[in-house]
Every structure is written in C-alpha cells, then in structure tokens.
C-alpha cells in the first residue's frame, strides 16, 4: 500500500521489470558497502544522476512528445551554477544554495523563453532551435574562460561535510569508514530517489495525463479545451529544472565542472540512447536504461577490448570491435529499437506480462 502511494499508483506491472528495478535499487543502496573501490562508487553515483536526468528528459520526449536538444544545457547550468559559486565563494552550504537557486532561476528563464518562442510551432522546429541554442551555450561556456575556466573547467572544494577527509563516526561500519565521500553518495542517492518519485507523481497526475493527450493528438487536446502551448511550456520548464538539479548533484559528486562532461553533445546523445533503449514514456525506462548504459560504458569496453585483441589478425573486424567503437553498436541498437520496440525494454516487458495475463 505504501509502495503503491510512493509509486503514485504506477506500478512496474511486470514481474521481471519489478525484479530488475529492485536489483538496481538495492544495488545502489548498498553500493558503498558491497562494491568497494572508488570506481564502482563512481559508477553508482553516475547511475543515480543519470536516472534523474534521463527521466526528466522522458518527461519531454516520452510524455509530451517534444524533442529537445537543450537538455544538456540545463544540466550544465546546474553544474556550473554550483561549481562557480563554490569556486568563487568558498566551500560553504550557503554557496551551494546560492549556486543552485541561481542556476534554477536561469534555467527557468531560458526554458520559458525558448518554449514560448518555439513551442507554438512544430516539434521539428523546436528540435532545431534547441540544438542551435545549446551549441551556442556550450561554445560560450568553453570560450568565456575567465569566468568558466574554459575547456579545462573548474575544480572546487565542496562543503566540509562532503569532503573525503571528513569523518562522521570514528568507527567503521561493515568495514567502511563513514567519510564525506559516503555522505555525498547518499546525498546524491536520496536526492535522486526523491526526484524520481516526484516525476512519477507528475506523470500520473491529471497534468501528466494532459501531457500524454498532447503527445497522442495535440489538435484534439486543444479541442478539449487544454491550452497545449501552456502545457508544453510547463513540461519544458519542469524538465529543465529537474535537469538543473541533476547537474547540481553531478557537480557536487565530481567536485569539478567542465564543458566536456557537462555540456558536450555526447552527453545529449547518451541521454537519447538511454531514453529510447530503456523505454520512452515510462519513467522506469530511465532507471533500467541508465543502469545498463552506464554499466556498459564502464565495463563493456573492457570486454570489447579483449574481443578486439582476439581479432587483431583481421584488420576491419578488429576496428569494428575496438573499445572506442562501442557507440557504433549502441547506435545500431538505438535505430533498431526505434523501429521495432518504440517503447523500449520496459514497454516490451510490460507487453509480455500483459499477454501472459490474458492469453
């Protein structure tokens, strides 16, 4: 019952899916204790942030049917907001607060302006405009080096409680020191969880239903009396704000901001790949997709490296399996899934569960 309320009545509706979600959740909760080592903790934190980022993108793409390429821009605004505030004002919670609220305000204004300017027209127009604005923003961030640190980005110190040297308890719990890194991880994790549940609430609210109506048939939604421009713009702003918060979390975790990790177009294509492969229009797709994608990004490449070495005798194939070429295979998977499984992994699993119930 509590679970049902927490998930806003939108249960996974598939046993396999529930099992996968539980596995991801438990894995993320226990990550610092079960998988020791800096790298695996980093993977876990990245998954948390990406779940939020991708789910907020799903709000736009999957639920409202709006293609935006400016999502990394909002993500970057959040990261840069906190990063520059901490860099300029010193490591304090006040700086985190100022940076976050400044970033949120900027994102809101930008999302409103872009939305009102171009959401009246077709989806295609919006996609192009956001692409142009986001790339201009990325160029600005890397060129205004006095302010943003240019290509190198900025490193900064986080508030004392989050610094790796900080000890909350003198004793170790389950063989792990309770240090600032752990606290940061749980800060990221619980914020991500809260934001995720919040988005689940949004898409299952009457507001979310209107968004889906707009996606299915905007003319009809308009005819029913919903001002589609306003709903689209609201969804756009909401997505932007949550992406900004995801950026804040990422910056706090990495203690670094830079154009390559925060604003580059690669991040945008990653988001697209995750949301489509995971499942558009199902917030859960973001969880499954991010977990699989980030794990693949970090561990599949090692396996591909081995395959490439094994095939080093054959010139073309070796190149095809070169560890840097993993995006090729994901791209193929992406195209295939747009054709054959437009609802992604989650949609497939749900459809399977449905046919099993009513054969």
């Amino acid at each position: 019952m509590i679970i049902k309320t927490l998930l806003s009545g939108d249960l996974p509706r598939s046993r396999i899916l529930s099992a996968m979600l539980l596995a991801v959740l438990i894995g993320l909760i226990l990550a610092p204790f079960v998988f020791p080592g800096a790298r695996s903790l980093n993977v876990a934190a990245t998954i948390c942030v990406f779940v939020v980022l991708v789910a907020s993108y799903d709000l736009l793409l999957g639920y409202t049917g709006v293609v935006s390429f400016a999502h990394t821009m909002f993500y970057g605004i959040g990261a840069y907001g906190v990063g520059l505030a901490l860099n300029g004002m010193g490591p304090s919670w006040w700086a985190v607060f100022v940076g976050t609220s400044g970033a949120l305000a900027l994102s809101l204004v930008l999302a409103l302006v872009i939305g009102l300017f171009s959401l009246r027209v077709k989806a295609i127009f919006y996609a192009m405009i956001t692409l142009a604005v986001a790339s201009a923003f990325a160029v600005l961030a890397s060129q205004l080096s006095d302010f943003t640190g240019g290509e190198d980005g900025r490193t900064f110190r986080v508030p004392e409680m989050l610094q790796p040297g900080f000890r909350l308890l003198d004793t170790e719990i389950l063989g792990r020191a309770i240090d600032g890194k752990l606290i940061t991880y749980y800060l990221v994790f619980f914020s991500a969880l809260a934001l995720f549940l919040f988005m689940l609430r949004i898409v299952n609210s009457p507001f979310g239903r209107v968004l889906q109506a707009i996606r299915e048939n905007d003319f009809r939604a308009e005819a029913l009396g919903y001002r589609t421009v306003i709903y689209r713009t609201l969804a756009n702003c909401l997505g932007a704000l949550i992406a900004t918060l995801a950026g804040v979390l990422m910056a706090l975790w990495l203690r670094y901001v830079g154009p390559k990790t925060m604003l580059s177009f690669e991040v945008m294509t990653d988001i697209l790949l995750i949301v489509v492969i995971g499942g558009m229009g199902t917030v859960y797709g973001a969880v499954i997709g991010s977990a699989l994608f980030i794990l693949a990004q970090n561990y599949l490449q090692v396996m591909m490296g081995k395959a490439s070495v094994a095939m080093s005798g054959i010139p073309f194939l070796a190149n095809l399996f070169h560890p840097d070429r993993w995006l090729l295979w994901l791209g193929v998977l992406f195209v295939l899934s747009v054709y054959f499984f437009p609802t992604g992994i989650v949609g497939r699993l749900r459809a399977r569960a449905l046919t099993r119930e009513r054969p």
Partner: protein
Amino acid sequence: MTKILNVAPQDTALPKVRVDMVPLLLVPVLALLMLPLVGSFPTWVTLTVAGLAMGMMVFMMASGLTLIFGLMDVLNFGHGAFVSVGAFTATMVLLPMRSWVEADSVWMNLSVVGMAILLAMVVTGLLGWAFERIIIRPVYGLHLKQILITMGGMIVAEQLIHVIWGAEQIPLPLPTTFRGAFIIGDAALEKYRLIAVVVGLIVFVSMFLVLNRTKVGLLIRAGVENGEMVEALGYRIRTLFVGVFMAGSALAGLGGVMWGLYKETLTATIGAEITVLVFIVIIIGGLGSVGGCFIGAMLVALAANYAGFLAPKVALVSDILLMVTVLLWRPQGLYPVAKR
C-alpha cells in the same frame, strides 16, 4: 440584358506572382552597413569575400536539406553525416594522388580536386539512396521518429567513419595553386575563397535553372506545394523523392569536400559541427525554400565574419542573434513555404 459574368478580357495576362524583394536586399544592406563600422575598405573587402565564400559552402550543404524537407516533410538530422562522408571520401583521391595535388599546375590541381569532388558526390549520392531506403522510408510522416532515427543514423555513420578511416585527424592540404591570395589594391583575396564563391554560384544557378526551367523542377516545386495532387496527375512522387534525396546528399558531399579543404584537417565530427549552422540557415531562410536558404547562408556567414572582426565575443552567438532577429520579423523565415 446586363452582363452576368464579369469575364476578364482574353488578352490579359495571368496575375503575376509578386516577387518579395525585401529579403534580397538584406545581404547588400548588411554588407554596406558594416563598411563604416569596419573602417578600412580593403579589410572590408577581405571580410566580405571571406563571408561570401563561407556562405556559399554552407549553402551547398544546406540547400539539399531544405529541399528534402520541403518536398518530403523529412528533416534529416543526419545530414551532417553526408558532409563528413563527402570530405573523407575526398581523401581517398587526394592523398594517394599527392603528386598531382602538390604539382604547380592549375590543371593538374583542378582535375584532381574535380575527381575528388566527383567521387565524393557519387559516394554520398549512393549513401543517400541507401539512407532513404533503410532509415527514412519506414518513418515518413512521423516527425518524432524521424528526428530520433536520423540522429541514430548520424551516430552510426560517424562511428563507421572511425572504423573505415581510423580515429585520428587527417590532414587535407590545399592544392599548391589554390594557396595564397590575390592582392588587389590593399585588399587580400584568398584564392580558395574565390574558388568557393565560384563553385557556390555555379551550384546555385544550376539549381535555380533546374527548378524553374525544367519539367523535373516543375514537378519538384509542385510536389512541395501539394504532393498528393502531383500523384493524382499520374507522376510517381516516390521516384522524385528518391532523386531529390540523392541529389541533396550529393550536394552535402560536395559541400563537405569544399569545407574539408577549407579547414585543411578532417575529423569525423566535421559534419555534426556544421549541422547547427546549417539548421540556423534553413530556419532563417524558411524551411523548404531554396532561395531563402541562399540568402540565409550569406547573412549568417557575413554576420559571423564581421562580428569576428568587430567583436570576437559576439561572434560566438552572432548566428543565434541573427536567427532571433529574423524570426521576430518573419516567424516563418524569410520566404515562408505556403503549405507549412
């Protein structure tokens, strides 16, 4: 009995289509406005020629995209991939025939570049055919899927370039006689830029003639206006689609070769980087309009060059500012295409 029908006398001509002149004036007006700001005349000439050259190259890449959109209502987000493939294909001619490239003879240089362009256009044209067949055909009419799928096609194409040509940058030196500049008065005009202007003009004029003076062009224009009607009159619009898609891709390939020689180094993302500019250009011109695309390309390139000289920081966002200004004035672009 009074006249019931008010029939026009037979010798009156059909009502003329009014030509919208205002956008045409924008380019010279922008150029002239900048003259006092730049200050010195020779610098202004250099900047203007540089802008025109860049504009022509962008036009080559953008014209195919806008025509494809106008005719088929398909926006190919993977258009940049054809630009990259075109540029990389050119290396297959230009690098093995290095002696011709380095020879100090205009004819040898021209013919080797000509061969490179021809090969690039053939390859990108065929690729366009495959792309239309495999990637785009199943998603006609579905905008959301088109955006996603062409984006995916772009990712795959970029990675395949890495697989085929390797992941490193490839230097692409300009042929010997194309280097350097003509000095006229105090103004330095780079030779390669002049060549780009000439090639761009040839492309524009031939495209204009094909669209306005041939039957195929008539059908294409009719298809942009109303595809179903063309089909009802017994023409296979599918064949037309494929042809235009191939031609547009080949033009992108041509633009890619020119752009690659201009940059002199090649990376697989060369197409993705220019895509943003290309989109801005076709938005400014009005989606689907070739003439608007030409003017848009010139405006964007000139503005970028002037801004780069006058206020380098502004140059970073000059295209966006230009786009916003144009859209505030004409929300559908300079030459709105009637149907959309």
